[in-house]
């Protein structure tokens, strides 16, 4: 296999312009990876934070995502119970073992059965946090970690996301930069980063868009208002 590697690289190098300056090429690559300069970003999402939140909500809703805005963590279990009732769903929730979600006042809704862990085939409804929301396209950024199993994003029929307004950014680039800042180093990069834009869909039969192909049929976001990130401790 290393023989194949050598031959592939030899052919590639033969195809490069003759006399290519290798030191300069290496420097260019190191700089692009190290500095990761931003390319052109659409103006659409370069807005004050409150307008980014509004854009995020509008973009998500256009994709059939439902968004509940709440004033504080205290209101979350009630909104989730309402969601289950609205869709005639059983009261069982499979939840990410994440501090935000573990500390919600679930006991105020005693009929809700809450348990924590990765997604299983029998789970109908999952509740997870998100890492960021991207206003430009109404996209969620989620990533794998000890307290955020990836399978909860894909296995259940209904994916419910609890997040703060301060997690909403304008562009994809800003969200990636926040992830870099949080991780500190690429060495800590998670196994997966999921960008989720609306519920699962397909257009594989005669090009007709249909929701609920293999992933969640519905995506619901409970947005806790807390102002822009700059005002958070």
């Amino acid at each position, binding site marked *: 296999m290393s023989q*194949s590697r050598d031959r*592939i690289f030899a052919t590639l190098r033969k195809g490069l312009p003759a006399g290519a300056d290798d030191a300069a090429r290496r420097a260019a690559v190191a700089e692009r990876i190290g500095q990761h300069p931003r390319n052109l970003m659409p103006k659409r999402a370069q807005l004050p934070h409150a307008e980014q939140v509004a854009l995020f909500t509008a973009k998500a809703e256009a994709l059939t995502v439902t968004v509940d805005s709440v004033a504080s963590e205290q209101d979350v279990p009630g909104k989730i119970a309402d969601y289950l009732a609205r869709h005639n769903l059983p009261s069982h929730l499979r939840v990410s073992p994440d501090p935000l979600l573990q500390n919600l006042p679930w006991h105020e809704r005693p009929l809700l059965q809450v348990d924590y862990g990765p997604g299983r*085939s029998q789970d109908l409804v999952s509740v997870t946090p998100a890492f960021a929301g991207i206003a430009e396209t109404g996209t969620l950024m989620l990533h*794998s970690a*000890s307290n955020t199993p990836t399978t909860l994003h894909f296995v259940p029929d209904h994916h419910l996301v609890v997040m703060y307004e301060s997690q909403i950014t304008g562009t994809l680039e800003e969200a990636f930069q926040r992830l870099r800042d949080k991780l500190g180093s690429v060495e800590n990069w*998670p196994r997966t980063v999921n960008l989720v834009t609306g519920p699962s869909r397909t257009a594989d039969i005669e090009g007709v868009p249909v929701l609920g192909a293999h*992933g969640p049929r519905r995506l619901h976001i409970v947005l806790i208002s807390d102002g822009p990130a700059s005002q958070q401790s």
Partner: protein
Amino acid sequence: MSMTITAQDFEANASKALRDPNLRKAMDIIGGAMASRRVDAASALPEFEALRDEGVKIKNHVLAHIDLYLEKFEEQLTKRGGRLHWCRTPREARETILALCRSRNAKTVTKGKSMVTEEIGLNGFLEQHGIQPVETDLGEYIIQLAHEPPSHIIGPALHKTREQIAQLFEDHHPDYELPNAPGVKAGPRSTDPQTLVTEARAVLRDRYFQADVGITGANFLIAETGATVIVTNEGNGDLTQSLPKMHIVVSSIEKVIPNLEDLSTILRILARSATGQEMSVYTTLSCGPKRPEDPDGPEEFHVVLLDNGRSEMLGTALQPLLRCIRCGACMNNCPVYHSVGGHAYGWVYPGPIGAALDPHMIGLETARHLPNASTFCGKCEEVCPMRIPLPSIMRWWREQAHERKIGPALPRWGVEAWAFAAKHPWLYRLSTRIAVAALNMMSKGKGRFAKLPLASGWTNGRDLPAPQSAETFMAQYKKRKH
């Protein structure tokens, strides 16, 4: 052992396709829709054209540094606990994947959509060795049931009508029970797409959990983090890669890009060009196996990276093809593709990108018809997010075929005779004068020919217009000038 090639029979394939009523119906339905969704999405983003230029710049930069970015990708992937397998040929890639599956005693392999696995003929090979591949992308699942190759790179079953799909489901899961009425069999099946999607979802659900290995493709490889990226709408690729113990990514070397900013830029043009969405539903970056503290994810992560002639394209007239991000816009906007469908092209990549790429990958002798399967309307280049000069590359292949004397001699002699005459004006005028007068006389004033010797290729399908005057254009022009 790769996918059966029928590109050499393009002419026969195309005539057959033109007479296939189901194909006509399917192509008419998707015809305008795919192209107009792209137009709507592009015009809703003022920066769209500028973003295409940015995309071209990124890919050109990558191609000038591709060896170094691939090294960097390998280094980062390895640090995250993944393994990279370099494969020059389809055979090497198949053997590598088989060995990996055997190391897990795999019986069932779920698969996300991957054109590179079509390129290497993976499914047939795994079946021959006792491993059952299960396609999970709805379109791929449908054509797997039908034992057909994909006809479109992002909508593999777009050549099928809903009635044909309902019949396939009836043939393959007649015992399927309606989700809201256990014990009630589904037949006779509804042809409603929503109902058919629900059935496929239910049938494939258990397969994800039973699979020993999950195989996906990759749209991008990010050098900065060592991650592979898939872009999907259904979520099947994510179930495929997060439930089994082993995740194998099968991709090719030109998919490497520098960093997350470059990914962000290219994503903005990819979905808009492909389906007219602003963003596909699921874009997933994956690198390495589950971390020790992770509650789910695969225990092993392998990337099988195929060359298959791509490295030889660098520094040649074909280099711009390495910018392709496989969005399918060129086929969605191609009049020839819309007339004959994807199967007529006879290999993995149909449409204009196939007409430009396939002669390199399966040989010009075999694929010589494909660069001719074009009206040269230029629409493919106009919509290509990476601005690949597809018509120029097809023209380049035509020149190659002429120079290398590939294909029948008669058209070549014809072209050479014409070229000789065109370079000698007196000869050209003399011969056109004779030809115009003769044709005008032979048409007996009808103005058209239903049949004409040596022109059956034209007249079998329609009448050939006859010269409307006994004099050539030049003769008439000279007369009127005075």
